[in-house]
């Protein structure tokens, strides 16, 4: 590698080595597929002064997933995993709904009271409660992992199981339909024709990017994922790094819960955010972060999430039923994981290198 590194600094070479390369290739493949089989896919129109179309949908509908993927990236980079994100979304959504109108859970109250466009709690407080609940869940996961030393998968599995129960406890087991219009702003609103959800994603991404690139947290997270003993010996509190990662992941899931419940106008503790843990792990894996932890890229994970959303919408567009999609996705992930494995990477690299040498000769 060292011997001929000089003549290889071409843009293409650097791009190919970059973490964004493979996720973008995947995205490109899907878009090419769309261009051939679903030409209508790329249509972007303006309706009531708002942008709409599949491509906008990828970001608008995909906002919760992108958010969760950002949080999940941090956790996976420390060498852990968070299976509870779906449940945390449910808890966050339930929290919002119940604060708008605690009577939602009571079946005996007449419809007139329920369907009023009012909130019992000021909106900022609702948002704060949403985010607080999710962040607290993340803190709990982080505590179990870093202080109680429970394996990440097990620790978060507990909240994955019990979390939906908790959400139902909050909603009293009812599907709470929300009629308070200001709350819909987060999921359905537009600013300058662009969905509000996209602004929120940008804000969280900016926050995460700031934490990762402008503070030492990013470096610490990577070093914990690579070798937590060496990290500890270097004078870094590896426990607090893990705690922070899980807490941040909880926060991201909470924001996702806010957007999602606002988008669907309801909080259904059983179904909201279901399978998000799969999609989030998938996004991170497609983004090239190893499940074992270490090096990570937030942007690559975001692209990973976009790939999944695009894939999903494409499948819908060509008429694959929602449920069959699950099977296809599962196969996709497995292929991606195999593709990223050491062996196959070496194989691909050697193919590239081989070609280049032949051309040089």
């Amino acid at each position, binding site marked *: 590698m060292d011997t001929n590194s000089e003549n290889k600094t071409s843009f293409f070479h650097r791009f190919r080595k970059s973490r964004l390369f493979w996720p973008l290739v995947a995205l490109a493949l899907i878009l090419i597929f769309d261009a051939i089989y679903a030409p209508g896919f790329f249509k972007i129109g303006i309706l009531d002064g708002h942008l709409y179309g599949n491509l906008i949908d990828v970001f608008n509908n995909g906002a919760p997933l992108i958010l969760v993927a950002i949080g999940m990236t941090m956790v996976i980079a420390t060498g852990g995993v968070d299976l509870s994100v779906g449940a945390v979304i449910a808890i966050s959504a339930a929290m919002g709904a119940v604060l708008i109108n605690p009577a939602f859970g009571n079946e005996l109250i007449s419809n007139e009271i329920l369907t009023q466009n009012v909130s019992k709690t000021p909106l900022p407080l609702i948002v704060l409660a949403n985010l607080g609940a999710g962040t607290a869940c993340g803190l709990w996961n982080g505590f179990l992992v870093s202080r109680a030393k429970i*394996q990440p998968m097990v620790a978060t599995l507990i909240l994955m199981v019990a979390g939906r129960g908790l959400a139902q406890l909050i909603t009293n087991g009812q599907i709470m339909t929300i009629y308070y219009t200001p709350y819909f702003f987060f999921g359905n609103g537009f600013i300058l024709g662009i969905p509000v959800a996209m602004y929120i994603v940008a804000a969280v991404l900016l926050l995460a990017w700031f934490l990762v690139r402008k503070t030492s947290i990013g470096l610490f997270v990577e070093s914990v994922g690579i070798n937590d003993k060496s990290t500890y010996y270097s004078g870094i509190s590896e426990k607090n790094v893990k705690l922070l990662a899980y807490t941040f992941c909880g926060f991201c899931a909470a924001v996702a819960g806010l957007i999602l419940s606002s988008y669907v106008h309801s909080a259904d503790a059983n179904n909201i955010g279901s399978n998000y843990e799969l999609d989030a792990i998938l996004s991170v894996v497609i983004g090239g972060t190893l499940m074992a932890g270490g090096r990570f890229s937030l942007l690559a994970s975001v692209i990973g999430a976009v790939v999944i959303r695009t894939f999903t919408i494409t499948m819908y567009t060509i008429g694959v039923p929602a449920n069959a999609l699950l099977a296809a996705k599962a196969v996709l992930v497995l292929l991606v994981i195999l593709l990223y494995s050491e062996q196959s990477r070496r194989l691909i690299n050697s193919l590239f290198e081989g070609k280049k040498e032949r051309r040089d000769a």
Partner: protein
Amino acid sequence: MHRIKKFLFKNGPLLATILIFFIVYAIGGQLYPAMRKPQVFFNLFINNASLLIISIGMTLVVIMKGIDLSVGAMIALTSVASAALLQQNFPPLLVILMMTLMGILFGLTMGAITHYLKVEAFVVTLMGQFFARGMAYVINRSSITITDDFYKFLALTKIHVPFFENAYVYITSLVAIVLLVVTFIILVFTRFGRTVYAIGNNEQSALLMGLPVARTKLIVYAFSGFCSALAGIVFSISLTSGFGGYALSMEMDAIASVVIGGTALTGGVGNVFGTLFGVLINGIIVTILQFNGTLTSWWTRIGVGILTLIFIGIQSLFYVRKKHT
């Protein structure tokens, strides 16, 4: 005195599980006198037959320090697939055979991927879960009713329990119990069974001891696949239908049962007998909620979640200390 202490130490988590079961049962009996009927106890075996079956498979996987998140979805897939085949007038015995073969192959594939390609078991089996659930919906998006006579015969034949008047179980409950006994014998009395324990304790050591690690791991995942297919058949028999939405999150109930039954998620420790009580505790909580009527089912989840956490705590107390002394 020393022996008693040793016995308690060795079987602490299991005894705690059994004790909790009886305490919960007694509380239920106090609150709702109708629960004291013997049939209520036997209903636990009727209602939880498929949970018990997948939990048995899960026990082996967890003892081996693995995990199988695909079992719930496999139940759904098997139920739909068998219902669809029966609709096409396939002979029921052939359907059952095909389903178990499918389960074994499915488990084997996942085992091979996690062992040879070194992908974490929970990732592979999570993918397995989504694949199976998706395939179930691909076969049919709505529920298919089973009208086959043989299935109906299996579903409706009561077997009277000796010594208890009017108490009965169904054939499916017997299947679960036979599987339990067979698995118990395999775990305790065969080289394969002991190798499972050895791998769970330390895979590297097991390899250095010259034990067949790869083969054992594949067989265990195949066994779990077999169990989930069997559970799917039992499930479809008891509901006489197949549907892709069946057994949602049931893998969580199975894992919780296994953990509550004293099997350590850190591997190497546990037995299927404890798993039986884990399943029964799960069942008794549901039963009490049913008798109560006003509390909704989500209390089960919270209860089971808390119990799981407590048991992980107990385990680390027992086993971690044991390892360090």
